[in-house]
């Protein structure tokens, strides 16, 4: 087992060594230094401590998988009743890019009931092969049955990497698959790249987005990663297709489940900030709940929705579903106008992929301006009403001129 060995004789300043550990895992007792259970094996003490004081002793033997046996990049097709979630196309686009670097194919894994006629659509986005498991018992998502199908697919196709949308289904399915194959899964990747040796470079925000971590699954296959919707770009739909559909049989016994679906109730359709093309975001610069009406008016004029930062939700002024950020929704509208938002990293991580970011803040040093394309230093209570007037005047003129 990989471990850290402390060489006491090489430590000159114990407190300096203790201070290196960001997790407080280096302990000192009667002048003896030891590593405690809080150790995350980040090895900063090896790198930055006194030379030779802490030694990293790797595993004697690391079981290495034969990577040449695993080929192709697979995308899990996220769908509801055959309606394919757009994150799927985004991931196929990314998979094509990654696969091109290693000269391998792109696969799509499509499981459900009565989905046969929907599978061709995936070919228009560049999947080389679509593996279809069409079974009545796969009508509803049940984690055990879906994991079994995934297992069957992986054993049959042996893809080197699998991309799964970080949707409600993807986020509970991918971990079960990863654990079943004793392999790695990296959640919410924001950047993916491919190395020549087929190792998938996975970059994700850590510590609430304050740090980016680059992660490899170097010794096991398949490599699994989830990616949130609207992080990658969907490719253009092509009229011509060259891929093929592969119908996959599976033994009904494998689809047994301890979960029984009693009923499915459609939620009331509500306008969500996830799908809005324009978002007006209220931050702490909004002084009272009634002032949100002003932002709503601007949103209505631009055909958008009002969203907010966490403090506004915590104040009870707006529904939590409208919160943007790591603890809220990730959004990628075409236009986002933030009003009195300071720009915490948690917030920015949830919106910095927006196409155009306009930010109004009184403080020229506000960190939101690091994320904004256009930083407007001024009082939102003066600017927003005047902006509304200008847009209204434009509309009154039929948008002809101004």
């Amino acid at each position: 087992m990989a471990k850290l060995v402390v060489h006491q004789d090489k430590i000159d300043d114990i407190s300096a060594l203790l201070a290196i550990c960001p997790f407080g895992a280096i302990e000192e007792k009667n002048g003896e230094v030891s590593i405690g259970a809080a150790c995350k094996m980040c090895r900063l003490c090896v790198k930055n401590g006194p030379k030779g004081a802490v030694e990293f002793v790797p595993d004697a033997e690391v079981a290495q998988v034969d990577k040449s046996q695993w080929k192709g990049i697979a995308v899990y097709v996220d769908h509801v009743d055959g309606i394919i979630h757009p994150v799927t196309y985004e991931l196929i686009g990314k998979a094509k890019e990654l696969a091109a670097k290693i000269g391998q194919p792109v696969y799509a894994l499509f499981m459900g009931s009565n989905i046969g006629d929907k599978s061709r659509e995936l070919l228009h986005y560049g999947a080389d092969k679509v593996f279809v498991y069409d079974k009545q018992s796969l009508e509803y998502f049940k984690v055990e049955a879906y994991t079994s199908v995934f297992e069957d697919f992986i054993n049959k196709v042996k893809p080197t990497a699998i991309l799964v949308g970080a949707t409600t289904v993807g986020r509970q399915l991918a971990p079960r698959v990863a654990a079943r194959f004793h392999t790695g899964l990296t959640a919410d990747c924001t950047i993916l790249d491919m190395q020549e040796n087929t190792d998938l470079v996975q970059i994700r925000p850590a510590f609430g987005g304050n740090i980016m971590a680059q992660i490899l699954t170097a010794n096991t296959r398949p490599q699994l990663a989830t990616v949130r919707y609207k992080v990658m770009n969907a490719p253009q739909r092509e009229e011509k297709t060259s891929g093929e559909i592969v119908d996959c049989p599976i033994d009904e016994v494998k689809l047994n489940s301890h979960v029984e679906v009693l009923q499915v109730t459609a939620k009331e359709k509500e306008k969500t900030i996830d799908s809005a093309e324009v978002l007006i975001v209220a931050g702490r610069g909004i002084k009272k709940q009634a002032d949100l009406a002003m932002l709503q008016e601007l949103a209505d004029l631009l055909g958008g929705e009002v969203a907010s930062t966490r403090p506004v939700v915590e104040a009870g002024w707006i529904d939590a579903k409208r919160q943007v950020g790591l603890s809220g929704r990730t959004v990628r509208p075409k236009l986002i106008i933030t009003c009195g938002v300071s720009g915490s990293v948690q917030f920015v991580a949830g919106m910095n992929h927006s196409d155009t970011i306009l930010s109004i803040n009184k403080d020229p040093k506000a960190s939101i301006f690091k994320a904004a394309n256009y930083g407007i230093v001024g009082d939102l209570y003066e600017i927003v009403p005047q902006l509304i007037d200008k847009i209204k005047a434009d509309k009154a003129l039929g948008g002809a001129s101004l």
Partner: protein
Amino acid sequence: MDILVCIKQVPGSNKVKIDPVTGVLQRNGVDSKMNPYDLYALETGMRLKERYGGTVSVISMGPPQAKAVIYEAFAMGADKGALVSDRKFGGADVLATSYTLAQGIRKFGTFDLMICGLQTTDGDTAQVGPEIAEALHIPSVCNVRNILDVDDHAIVVDMDMPHDIERLRVSFPCLLTVQKDIFQPRLPSYLKKQATQKRDIRMFTMADMDDQDERRYGLSGSATQVQRIFPPESDKKQEMWQDTSSNALAGKMYDKIKELKFI
């Protein structure tokens, strides 16, 4: 019904920086707390116990200091607690963490229902719950927003999906991850805290585990490796508009929005 709730001690804040020269991760302070999402899991366990009888146990993995969150759970009404702790478990990723916890759960007892919070505020992956269930070969349901009924064999829950709500009957034993706001978590009780401050917490180390293969634990048992950490960067087009009247600023915004064809 015997219920197990998985809880984690997390840093009090995510404020970290990387020293640009040394590359060392700097954390402000070492204060820690129970993962806020776990409070909802614990509250769910307590409500079920109050309604249907049984016990609520909690398990955590981490350094000895993590006992603090187990005592906090006692003060909220949990009956038993266990901590899985060994420096050999250090550096564990989701896979190794889930496997280690599953091993610890097997030593701790048999449970009808296991409940986890939706995710943690430090790792933020929402993966450990379902991976524990896989390691234990039991069904799992995530994003549970409501619990409707419990009988001898199963629990009926509502799973929150993007477009609908699925009502599921899940056989015991099973694992649920519950959404924020499923129930309002209670505050720890001072009297319970007094009464439980000396209660024993079971400790499980590497030596206690059924599976003694050290390659399944800690860094060795981790399938993912963090290669490097770096500060987020931005390389986008940026302009600042300032030092002019608010009317002029509104005008520039109007022009830009018009140029982008939103008006």
